């Protein structure tokens, strides 16, 4: 191996082969030497995703030589580290905001600068010791802490600020971090911040001055905000260089959002603006989807990275917008209903009830048919039981905290299951649920900032502890596997 990552199918095959070889050696069917030769030959002929584009740090090389269960576990624990980083960053920002008064200015600054340097150095340490995925959460934390530090300085000196410049500086910092350290999470954050910068700039150029007026002010400038294409191109370059699939999705999302917002401000009045949006947006999506179809046939492998995101997001863009128009009124009513309803009614509603109980039953069926382990079925069973017994539980068990905690647990479980069984759908479902749960918790805890900070910090720390535990466990597992493999087969057979 020269540092490249293997294609997933070959990775899985090599894992199975290694397990079989170990078994055959233990059973005395083949010699350890032959097993080693065969494993080396299979490894040498495996398809690599891209040797030159991948990172070749010592952690990465060590990781690529690990047996597949360890790799899967690595991905799971790595994902947990990333999520822990997100939660810790959210917690840190909320905590600093909530305790603003009681801290001296210098202490506030020290907090954020400590987070910035601590996060950055911890990220490098994690990457050196364990691999890229482990470090992603900390890289993200560093990128977010940079913006937090700038915001704090602005508050200390009563700077009412220029959001455009603030977002531009922040996005440049995050993108530079992503590019120099090869961090996908920081690059994603950088591009999203650049999108925010561009939208604010377009808004300042066009919308802000005339939302209260019936016509555009005289001589206003053209709405297109071209400078955004620069960070977009940098992100696209990074996507192609490292073959980052998440960043490919965000590049397409940012491009569509930028096009949409620019087009939305083309009209000569507010009414015309809305009409132009209605008229143009489905075509933007359609064009993106068609470009995706064209790219899917391209011989350039790097360009093909954008094909699927373009097809999916373009189609969703076109259809989603048409559906939004058709069902706008219906959606508004549903949202109003949701906003008005309290948690117990919502949680004990018919459909969530059915969905969760069905999930619990499916998990149970999985255990019975031995498709999943009992511990894998535990979270949906607990959630299902909680959901089923809602009318009977004491009040503290029906709180939003328990609901949020259980939702997060369910999300992590879905992601873990997806990684364990190599089911991307489950992984994505888990990610979506995680995002929804965090967002929902954030919304319901608005107004109690300290509570929000405490929740994020607590959840982030818990996840970090779990991730560290998982890491130690995997290292132990690997050592044990190594020891077992090192034992000569005839000794095992000897009575």
């Amino acid at each position, binding site marked *: 191996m020269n540092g490249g990552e293997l294609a997933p199918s070959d990775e899985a095959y090599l894992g199975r082969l290694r397990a079989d070889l170990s078994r055959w050696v233990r059973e005395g069917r083949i010699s350890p030497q032959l097993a080693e030769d065969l494993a080396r030959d299979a490894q040498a002929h495996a398809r690599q995703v891209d040797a*030159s*584009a991948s*990172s*070749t*740090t010592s952690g990465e090389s060590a990781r690529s030589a690990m047996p597949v269960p360890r790799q899967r576990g690595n991905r799971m624990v790595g994902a947990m580290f990333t999520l822990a980083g997100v939660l810790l960053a959210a917690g840190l920002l909320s905590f600093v905001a909530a305790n*603003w*008064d009681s801290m*001296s*200015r*210098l202490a506030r*600054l020290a907090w954020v*600068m400590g987070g*910035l*340097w601590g996060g*950055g*150095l911890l*990220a*490098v340490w994690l*990457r*050196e010791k364990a691999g890229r995925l482990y470090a992603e959460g900390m890289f993200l934390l*560093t990128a977010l802490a*940079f913006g937090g*530090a*700038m915001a704090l*300085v*602005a*508050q*200390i*000196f*009563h*700077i*009412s*600020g*220029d959001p455009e410049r603030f977002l531009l*500086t922040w996005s440049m*910092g995050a993108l*530079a*971090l992503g*590019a*120099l*350290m*090869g961090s996908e999470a920081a690059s994603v954050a950088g591009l999203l911040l650049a999108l925010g910068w561009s939208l604010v700039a377009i808004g*300042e*150029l*066009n919308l*802000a*001055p*005339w939302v209260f*007026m019936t016509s555009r*002010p*005289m*001589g*206003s*400038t053209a709405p297109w905000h071209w400078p955004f294409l620069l960070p977009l191109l940098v992100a696209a*370059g990074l996507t*192609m*260089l490292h073959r980052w699939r998440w960043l490919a999705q965000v590049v397409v999302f940012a491009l569509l959002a930028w096009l949409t917002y620019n087009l939305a401000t083309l009209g000569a009045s507010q009414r015309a603006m809305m009409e132009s949006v209605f008229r143009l947006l489905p075509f933007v999506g359609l064009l993106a989807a068609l470009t995706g179809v064209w790219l899917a046939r391209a011989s350039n492998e*790097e360009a093909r990275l954008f094909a699927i995101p373009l097809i999916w997001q373009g189609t969703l863009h076109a259809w989603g917008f048409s559906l939004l128009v058709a069902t706008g009124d219906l959606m508004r009513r549903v949202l109003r209903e949701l906003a008005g309803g309290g948690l117990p009614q919502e949680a004990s509603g018919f459909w969530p009830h059915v969905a969760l109980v069905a999930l619990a039953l499916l998990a149970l069926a999985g255990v019975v048919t031995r498709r999943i382990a009992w511990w894998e079925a535990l979270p949906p069973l607990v959630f299902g039981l909680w959901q089923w017994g809602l009318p009977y539980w004491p009040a503290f068990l029906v709180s939003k905290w328990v609901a949020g905690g259980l939702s997060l647990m369910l999300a992590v479980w879905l992601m873990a299951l997806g990684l364990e069984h190599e089911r991307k759908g489950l992984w994505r479902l888990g990610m979506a649920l995680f995002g929804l749960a965090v967002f929902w918790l954030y919304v319901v805890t608005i107004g109690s900032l300290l509570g929000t900070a405490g929740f994020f910090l607590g959840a982030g720390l818990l996840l970090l502890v779990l991730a560290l535990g998982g890491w130690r466990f995997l290292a132990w597992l690997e050592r044990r596997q190594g020891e077992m493999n090192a034992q000569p087969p005839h000794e095992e057979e000897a009575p």
Partner: protein
Amino acid sequence: MMRMLRQLWQGVEGLSAWLRMVAVLVAFTIVIGGMIWQRMRLLQTGREVIVPMRPVDPRDLFRGHYALLNYDFSRIETSRVRDFDQLRNNGGRSAFSPSGTIFVVLRKDPARPPFWAFSHALLKPPEKLGREEVFLRCKRSWFGARAIFVNCGIERFYAPKERALKLERELRGRWRFDRNRGRMVPEEGARVPGVILRVNARGEAAIAGLYVDGKRILVDGLL
């Protein structure tokens, strides 16, 4: 193109990860340190100017933990922008983009010491200023046919909760809403509070403190 990118990445990756990270962190620290240094310097060396302050909503001044501050020059009649007509005739469209820079000239007010009053505004940097004049470099937030709204980066005053509540009590009741003029005006006989600014030669301004009942309530430093 891809080959060039790969070569570039190989060059970057050849450097130690610790070194790269420290370089990024040092760059971040320089940006943040630069912000602090620039403000500290402005507060120490800028020319002191006290301008009358007008709250957006005096009943709930410290909404959250900061007060939104409004000045006489927060909304400027286009008739008081000296080069407005000249630029409209000759400057083309770009001069009238809704967002852009506007230069607000303040002059010491002999009738109301120690306050400085709004004199006029310009769309181009002022070439000559009197001894008792300074200018602020502001951003146009939007403009209509008759007025331009500006933002000079001095529109927020952050304060800890107790201090904010105390200030709010002190400042309440100094203004009333004038229906004819469509804005807040000082009560008869009430002493108008002000904002102490520090302004440098480039027109950048920083809030150095508040001026209430003839007393300076200075913003404390970093500690």
